[in-house]
């Protein structure tokens, strides 16, 4: 307690406070600017047409900005990547933390982290030249540039995040839990599946949410391998067809737009929609986390 009012302590506290405020301030400013430019767009275009329109023809006369197929495209790619990445990621994390011998874990963990360092454009290129033709032939598709292709590559990108964080969560479950469970006569599998994983569940959900965040915000990969066609996904079969995503639309069109034109503002509105979707996902994640904590 004696040091709490020393100049060094106060300085440190002030710096930490300032960085906290700055981080929140930057996010708030991003939101304000997105909102401002989106409002400029919505003054000239109806919100309902924007969110429910089924066609995206931004450079036509008159332009049509129907975002619905693009929102669904983004969600579709993200769902595919989660369906692939979550079981694989959590399974790998359980294996590393509970089953793998020590030397193997020490070997695999850094290797998995290296995967996170591969630039997304490289993964996109591999997806475009190897995975897309393979999927087209293997599944007999019209084209290999599909939501499935994008989802697979995104899953690969999200895996290191999910594995690393989930493994940390599982490893930090206290030894006493395992010993207690084993002492009561549970098998190793029962201990892992009924005691250790439930105890680490909030950490595992955090890992999954970060993985989802990585997938929905990724741009380069989806631009290269999903085909970017703003087709309305009407059934589950759309997974095997091309889709256009929110991030891909902004990245591809922002370079061309005339500064402060309607199209320019429309892309900010697309950004706002992406921001809100991410926000909702985070909010649901927090909600789920709290529920688990309360039920413990």
């Amino acid at each position, binding site marked *: 307690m004696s040091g709490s009012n020393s100049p060094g302590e106060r300085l440190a506290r002030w710096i930490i406070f300032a*960085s*906290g405020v*700055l*981080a929140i301030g*930057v996010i708030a400013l991003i939101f304000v600017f997105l909102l401002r430019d989106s409002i400029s767009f919505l003054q000239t275009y109806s919100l309902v047409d924007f969110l429910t329109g*089924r*066609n*995206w*023809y*931004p*450079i*036509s*006369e008159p332009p049509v900005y129907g975002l619905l*197929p693009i929102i669904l495209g983004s969600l579709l790619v993200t769902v595919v990547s989660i369906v692939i990445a979550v079981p694989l990621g959590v399974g790998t994390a359980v294996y590393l933390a509970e089953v793998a011998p020590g030397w193997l874990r020490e070997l695999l963990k850094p290797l998995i982290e290296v995967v996170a360092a591969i630039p997304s454009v490289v993964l996109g290129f591999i997806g*475009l*030249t190897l995975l*897309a*033709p393979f999927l*087209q032939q293997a599944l007999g598709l*019209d*084209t*290999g*540039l599909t939501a499935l292709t994008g989802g697979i590559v995104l899953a690969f990108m999200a895996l290191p995040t999910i594995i690393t*964080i989930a493994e*940390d*969560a599982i490893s*930090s*479950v*206290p030894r*006493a*839990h395992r010993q*207690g469970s084993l002492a009561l006569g549970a098998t190793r599998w029962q201990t892992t599946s009924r005691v250790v994983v439930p*105890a*680490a569940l*909030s*950490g595992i959900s*955090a890992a999954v949410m970060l993985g989802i965040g990585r997938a929905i915000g990724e741009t380069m990969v989806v*631009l*290269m391998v999903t*085909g*970017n*066609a*703003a*087709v*309305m996904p009407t059934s589950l079969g759309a997974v095997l067809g*091309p889709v*256009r995503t929110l991030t891909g639309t902004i990245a*591809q*069109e922002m*370079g*061309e*737009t*005339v*500064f402060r*034109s309607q199209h320019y503002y429309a892309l900010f509105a697309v950004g706002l929609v992406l921001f809100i979707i991410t926000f909702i996902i985070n909010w649901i994640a927090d909600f789920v*986390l709290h529920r688990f*904590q309360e039920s*413990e």
Partner: protein
Amino acid sequence: MEREVPQQVKQVQHFRGRTLPAAALVGVLTILLLSTAACTAGQSSLSRGEGFIQAKGSDTMVNLAQMWAESYMQSNPEVVVAVTGGGSGTGISAMINGTASIANTSRAMKQKEQEQAAAQGIDVVENIVALDGIAVVVHPDNPVEELTLDQLAGIFAGEITDWGDVGGTPGPIVILSRESNSGTHVFFKEHVLNRGDSKGGVEYAPEALLLPSSQAIFEEVSQNPNAIGYVGMGYVLSGVRALKVSRGEGLPGGSPSIETVQDDSYPISRPLYIYTRTDSSQDVLDYLDWIRGPEGQEIVRELDFVPLKQEDTT
């Protein structure tokens, strides 16, 4: 034992709560610093600086522009020419806001862009520097040899969806287009889908795949027997085949080549432009003269674009 669970939960949250914003903060700050630095650098060196020419624009022209730059710099070592792509629209906005001195474009400036330049008080000069045939490409195994403009329009608008309807092996047609920031996208829509009427209102089918580069279209066509796409003539390499295109049923059709584009018998061709400001430096003017002269036009020919006819160059 019961108490230990929340502790573990806290630990993970602790990790989430603290590391991520800090990392994000560092990231944001770095980006802010870099972008400020880039902006100032852009303002100071890319305006009409001595001996430095920034050329930006059409992806169709990027290889051509690069070759021009390299060859010109060899004979004029005091000038540095930097070339980047990004699309015709990108090039024009860069020229208007002063971050590029030359805009390479594969389409003429739009009315809106002219107005924007005027609003900034900038006078713009249009220079035609080469011609380009737009090749319609398919997989080498595709038996279709020739299409009319009407058939092409039907395919890209999504009215014709099966290769069997245009004399090929029955099967779905996969339409490949460039993204809307591409001059080729705009040109093809105006001249093929709408037959020259820029307000015709015919759109690409929503099913059309919008690929980010000519290279991506080349890759997909060379792998996919169902695909049809359009690229600049320079991208017709082994692995894809250019279709003959005719103006109508029974009329003679041509393959895209230097001769057919120069004498206008190939129906899908366009001029390539360089836009500059009227107050460009002498370096830029000399460079333009060189491009339109014999040396520059020889490079046009080497890269499978179509050189200007001699009377056009003077």
